[in-house]
């Protein structure tokens, strides 16, 4: 049994307070959660939270609320302990199709994001060059998005969002349809992003339980409550959370070789069926 790495919790970074969304029926019903800054001695340790839940449960609605793209019908999402609700542009969003402006080159896509964050031309250029280098995209600056491979496109989309968000990144199904090697590459990219700044916070919406355990320090299970007959009732809420940091399962590059990894994956799969 590996000893859990030492860490402490700092200031509150994100608060989801009793968020509800309903249309013709309740979609989200009192979703509540928070993310605190994780501190590890001598390391820049960001936060990775994976939101797991079955299809159609309301993950996309919650995703939009956290991104500030949709106002919940009640409740609020706040950043950095402020009383102000999250605004569009404060949280970076990388959708499943890795949206980029196809009519702009990679460089132009990045500069657009960098300049919109209030940097002057010199600062924006420096920030873009640094990210291109970090993501191994230095040769891609002049290409248009449709000339990129899927992995390159994803990295450019992440870079674009990092340039204009305030350390928060939401990712929708980043592992969808990928082979095992590509999944590992995406996991490495996300870990790399999360550990490049103390306040970097990534929220990943996914179905992929194994990949989620590999990268997350917290797992949130979104689902609906059940009545006595086992029928789902009301809107979705966070049914269960797993603090992988406290369980000693976070930040371990060899986690897949540990029996606890497989036990947790099996338990989550079983739990998934009842969400």
């Amino acid at each position, binding site marked *: 049994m590996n000893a859990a790495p030492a860490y402490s919790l700092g200031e509150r970074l994100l608060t989801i307070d009793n968020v509800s969304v309903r249309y013709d029926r309740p979609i989200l019903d009192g979703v509540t959660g928070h993310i605190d800054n994780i501190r590890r001695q001598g390391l820049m340790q960001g936060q990775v939270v994976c939101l797991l839940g079955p299809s159609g449960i309301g993950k996309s609605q919650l995703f939009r609320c956290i991104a500030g793209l949709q106002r919940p019908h009640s409740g609020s999402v706040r950043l950095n302990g402020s009383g102000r609700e999250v605004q*569009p*542009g404060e949280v970076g969003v990388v959708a499943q199709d890795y*949206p980029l*402006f196809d009519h702009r080159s990679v460089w132009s896509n990045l500069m657009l994001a960098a300049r919109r964050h209030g940097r002057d031309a010199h600062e924006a250029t420096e920030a873009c060059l640094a990210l291109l280098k970090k993501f191994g995209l230095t040769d891609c600056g002049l290409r248009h*998005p*449709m000339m990129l*491979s899927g*992995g390159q496109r994803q990295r450019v989309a992440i870079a674009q*969002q990092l340039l204009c968000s305030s350390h928060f990144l939401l990712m929708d199904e980043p592992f969808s349809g990928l082979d095992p090697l*590509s999944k590992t590459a995406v996991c490495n990219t996300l870990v790399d992003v999360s550990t490049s700044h103390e306040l970097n916070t990534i929220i990943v919406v996914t179905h992929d339980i194994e990949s989620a355990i590999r990268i997350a320090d917290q797992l949130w299970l979104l689902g609906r409550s059940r009545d006595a007959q086992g029928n789902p009732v009301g809107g979705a809420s966070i049914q269960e959370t797993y603090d992988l940091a406290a369980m000693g399962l976070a930040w371990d590059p060899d986690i897949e070789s540990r029996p606890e990894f497989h036990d947790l994956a099996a338990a989550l799969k079983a739990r998934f069926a009842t969400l």
Partner: protein
Amino acid sequence: MKLVNLMLPFAPVRARWVRLLVAAQVAAALALWSFSGYRALPTPGEIGGAWMDLVRHQDLLAELWVSLRVSLMALGLSTLAAVTIACLSTAPLFMPLARLAAALRFLGFAGFTYVFMLVSGDAIVLRVAILAFGMTVFMVTALLADLAAMPRGRIDHCRTLGMQHWRITGELVLLGKADVILDLARQNAAIGWTLLTLVEGLTRSAGGIGALLLNQNRYFLLAGVFAIQATILVVGLAQDALLAWAKDIACPWRTLDKEPSAT
């Protein structure tokens, strides 16, 4: 390549074969036309002779220039109007106006010509106004359909980058749809040539190739009619090729293919 494959739908074919097929079919059509005993159409030789006659004695090229100017002015005006209406349509207040503009495509020019005549007071301006009106309504229809099909994720993407309102419209419609706009302008240019005869028929005294065509047609000078039609076809195709080239230059991303590269 087996010749039988040319008969199969979606069979892959080399560009060389396509060029060969086009040349062979054009040659066959011309031969059939020239040597057929059926005399409903003038022969290519008669049309060529009529074309030379029109150039020498009826200022065909000068009339063509008059029409080309009208066509280009109308194309520019209609593109500007349609893009402006499409951009405005992204705001709910202006959506009814855009829908109305699109609905007008079902109407003919009857009645409108009188209104345009009163407003313009000049034959060339009248032609440009009517042509631009005819083109704009179709372009607005196509642009509105394209904008309606735009996924919400595109707008969300702009918002996540901190863009708001008209900045989003500028990015997604003006820049993001530049290729669509240029494609529609190509289509509009073709529509313009088909409407030209109708429009120039309203004010024949101002000249133009459409007016010349109507005059030839009135006296049943079929060789002259087809000579003018052939001229319009050649100019139209050249204009279309020019606009396609302009689109490739302005929107290079449309012609880019994925390059194989590692993840």
